[in-house]
């Protein structure tokens, strides 16, 4: 999932305090799971904002809504009319969702309430950790299912640096050294020989931005449709 972290209340307040009305819009998928921008968090933030505006002696109309996903156009239909009653959207989605709000609801302003952190997993309650940086060329099969691009602080693909200490990373004693993890996993799998694989050179050409992926299956009928017109 995409893991997001709510901005501080002061940051959020600062970004909306001069508005007359704002719709706090949650996203029911990734950021709901990581408890940053789902329906529950929308309720909380809206309540906090109402309280603050009262204390500050300003009148801001604060609405609440949550849609299934802010990264799919169709889900916006449910709130399109409601949105018209507000000056801006305070989006609690990831950065992709915030941008889609601005695009689908143009020319309404869309303001982010979260900082989008990474693609990750839930390691424990309230504890999320990055696992993938979407490099576009997944090499996990060769590394015991541990991503050297993400888990290694230097994204090293040909073995560790010399900085690993007590199994931890040079970057911090809080972080495991990816290469020690890779070694131990491959050992358990009896696949240590895989480490001898020939030299790898990273290919960053797949990481040009903005990325786009078009599934051919969908492309074909669309083209046929066009040529039939």
């Amino acid at each position, binding site marked *: 999932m995409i893991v997001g972290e709510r901005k501080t209340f002061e940051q959020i307040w600062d970004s909306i305090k001069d508005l007359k009305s704002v719709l706090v819009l949650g996203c029911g998928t990734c950021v709901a799971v990581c408890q940053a921008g789902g329906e529950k968090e929308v309720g909380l933030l809206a309540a906090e904002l109402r309280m603050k505006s009262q204390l500050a002696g300003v009148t801001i109309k604060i609405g609440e809504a949550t849609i299934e996903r802010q990264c799919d156009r169709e889900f916006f239909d449910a709130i399109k009319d409601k949105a018209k009653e507000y000056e801006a959207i305070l989006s609690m989605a990831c950065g992709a969702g915030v941008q889609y709000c601005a695009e689908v609801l143009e020319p309404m302003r869309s303001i982010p309430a979260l900082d989008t952190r990474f693609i990750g997993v839930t390691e424990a309650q309230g504890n999320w950790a990055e696992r993938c940086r979407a490099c576009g060329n997944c090499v996990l099969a060769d590394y015991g299912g541990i991503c050297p691009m993400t888990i290694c*602080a*230097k*994204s*090293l*693909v*040909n*073995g*560790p*640096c*010399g*900085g*690993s*200490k*007590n*199994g931890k990373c*040079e*970057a911090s004693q809080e972080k495991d*050294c990816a*290469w*020690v993890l890779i*070694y*131990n996993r491959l*050992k358990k799998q009896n696949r240590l020989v895989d*480490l*001898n694989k020939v*030299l*790898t*050179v*990273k290919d*960053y050409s797949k990481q040009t931005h903005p990325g786009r992926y078009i599934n051919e299956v969908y492309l074909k009928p669309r083209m046929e449709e066009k040529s039939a017109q």
Partner: protein
Amino acid sequence: MPNSKLKQAFESKKFVVTAEAGPLKGTDITELELVAKLLKDKVDAVNVTDQQSSVMRLGSLAVSHLLVGWGIEPIYQVTCRDRNRIALQSDLLSAAVLGIQNVLSLTGDLPSSGDHPQAKPVYDLDSVSLLSVIQGLNEGKDMMGNPLVGKTDFFAGAVVNPGADTEAAYELQILKMEKKIAAGAKYFQTQAIYDPGLFEKFMKRAEQYKVPVLAGVIPLKSAGMAKFMNKNVAGVNVPQDMIDKISQAEDKTKTGLEMCSDLIKQLKPLCQGVHIMAIGWEKKVPQIIEAAGL
């Protein structure tokens, strides 16, 4: 262009001695020149560190070139932290035309440990792939296989950390050493060694590769320094008796230097040379060498 003097030194089977010169932050090279000239003819080559500890300073390419001009054999250290493959290859070509013949390939510390922690870490290449790039440049082609007009003739080295603390870290060091040799490393220098016994074990393992190894040594200045390294520097393990000795010493400088020379004497039969990292004591390196009987 004549062959690398460092390469010749290894070939002559003499016990090789290298030292280190860390460029300073700024453009004043007075101190650098002083140190370099003190080391001249005392060591076989001088490493020029590349933004050591991720602290921004004068570049290793320029300083290596200055050393050439002063008649000192430089080892141009290149890390993968700050430059992508285009810049690295270009700098290597520049080094070749500036008369630099030895390159040491390193991964490089993370920017977070230096004085510009907000910097973007690059690591487009790593210490292994950089070696293979150097090998390619020596063969007259860039890493895409495009031909070069005029090729390099680098003598490439790499580093290894024999003190890696866990089984995984140790085995991975050996594995990476093998990869570095396959990618063109012609010699190794190690992280600072304090325990000749541990080093001997490592050398037993590394012997099979028939690649010369320079044992890294750092003279101890105080017990605090030893404890700091034990706690913070991966692979460095100063034994307690050495810590006690330096902490009890009246003249710590004298004792520190003596301990370093003694250590070199113990390491000498085990390897092909030493790399002295004096960390501020560069001017005392000739003293260490003399006392070690080199």
